[in-house]
């Protein structure tokens, strides 16, 4: 086993941080260590927290983390913020709300940029979840970027997905029926200290009445991260959902879904590397593009040619 793998499994914070950097940078040195830690994964509960911008996801995660710490659980937090498509830089500010956790040895927080990935996540997220899981975190909380309607990829990785809304969204709840509203295992109406909570909950309820799921009613929990209200009820609903997954065999199904997405992501990255590597297919690709531009070749035939070279 690599030294790094052993230290990550032992829960050494510095090594966890270093391995995350390696996978974020797609460093080849990370691969061997990732292979070795895989058998140590699968224990952590993965909870996705998604929702519109400004709905209080970071503050809610702080409260959830404190609640899980009070139960003696180790908590990993992955907070994702958007990378600028222009500069490639990112301002990662989710930690501002979580600083009281930063000296707790039972909590590991990592901020990540999306680095060009669509869907509200970042492409190395699967790896980072495996790392925190192998390092002994009991609960992993993932904060997606502030989302609109269809950044729903969090369901591919989380066991339980929380969709966080706030009072006053009003009729706009109707417009986001598709996408975001379909992925919730639990709805959270945060900022319940603000007026309009009852109305927001009622609107959600009437919307959910239209959804036919005979074996599970999707709960709605009103919380106020600011006033620390509703947090215990929320953790209870999360536990109930996890029990539901395990008793209905849906848990294995979700984990398979995650591994499928992870596998495809690794293959996608490797294919892209192969296609854009100067020593491999780059020249063929450039040549095809020239021919497409000159109408000597169409894009579909070009794609067949390139795939033919990969599959031979």
């Amino acid at each position, binding site marked *: 086993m690599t030294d790094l793998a052993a230290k990550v499994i032992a829960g050494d*914070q*510095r090594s*966890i*941080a*270093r391995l*995350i*950097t390696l996978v*974020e*940078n*797609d*460093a*080849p040195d990370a691969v061997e260590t990732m292979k070795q830690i895989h058998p140590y994964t699968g224990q952590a509960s993965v909870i996705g927290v998604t929702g519109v911008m400004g709905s209080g996801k970071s503050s809610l995660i702080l409260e959830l983390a404190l609640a899980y710490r009070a139960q003696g659980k180790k908590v990993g937090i992955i907070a994702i913020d958007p*990378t*600028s498509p222009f*500069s*490639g*830089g*990112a*301002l*990662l*500010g989710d*930690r*501002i709300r979580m*600083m009281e956790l*930063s*000296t707790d040895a039972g909590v*590991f*927080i*990592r*901020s990540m*940029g999306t*680095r060009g990935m669509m869907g509200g996540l970042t492409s190395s997220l699967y790896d980072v979840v495996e790392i925190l899981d192998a390092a002994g975190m009991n609960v992993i909380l993932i904060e997606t970027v502030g989302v609109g309607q269809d950044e729903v990829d969090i369901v591919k990785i989380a066991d339980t997905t929380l969709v966080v809304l706030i009072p006053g969204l009003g009729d706009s709840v109707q417009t986001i029926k598709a996408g975001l509203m379909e992925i919730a295992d639990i709805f959270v109406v945060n900022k319940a200290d603000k007026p309009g909570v009852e109305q927001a909950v009622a609107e959600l309820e009437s919307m959910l009445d239209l959804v036919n799921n005979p074996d599970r009613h999707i709960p709605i929990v009103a919380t106020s991260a600011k006033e620390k209200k509703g947090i215990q009820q929320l953790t209870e609903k999360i536990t109930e959902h996890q029990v539901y997954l395990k008793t209905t065999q849906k848990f294995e199904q979700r984990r398979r879904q995650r591994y499928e997405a992870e596998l495809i992501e690794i293959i996608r990255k490797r294919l892209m590397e192969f296609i854009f590597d100067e020593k491999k297919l780059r020249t063929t690709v450039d040549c095809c593009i020239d021919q497409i531009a000159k109408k000597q070749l169409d894009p579909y035939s070009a794609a067949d040619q390139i795939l033919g070279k990969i599959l031979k």
Partner: protein
Amino acid sequence: MVKKIRVLVAKPGLDGHDRGAKIVARALRDAGMEVVYTGLHQTAEQIVNTAMQEDVDVVGLSLLSGAHMTLFVDVAVSMKEKKMDDVLIIGGGIIPQEDVPGLKKAGIAEVFGPGTPVEEIVNYIKKNVKR
């Protein structure tokens, strides 16, 4: 493989002025860096732990209260203790010129005063980042 420079911008101590820190954070982002911003009133312990978990290449400290000889030095000493020698530490804010040699001796690589063009900080980081 794409290596991005990661920077922690932190405000130790009690002063409530973070405009300068925010301007620097934005400039570093616009220069293609990933900037972790933690807000006001940080203790040295919080800053060092954050730098470790976030595995940053650079820690940028901003302070306007006059407590830099204590707080900057606390961060530098604690990082040395944790063997985080490969992290570049820089400082900024209202720092009297006569304090700069002492800060450098303690491990603050460079100090940027008011009026420093942000490009200068960007270029300094790009040139001096240790890994």
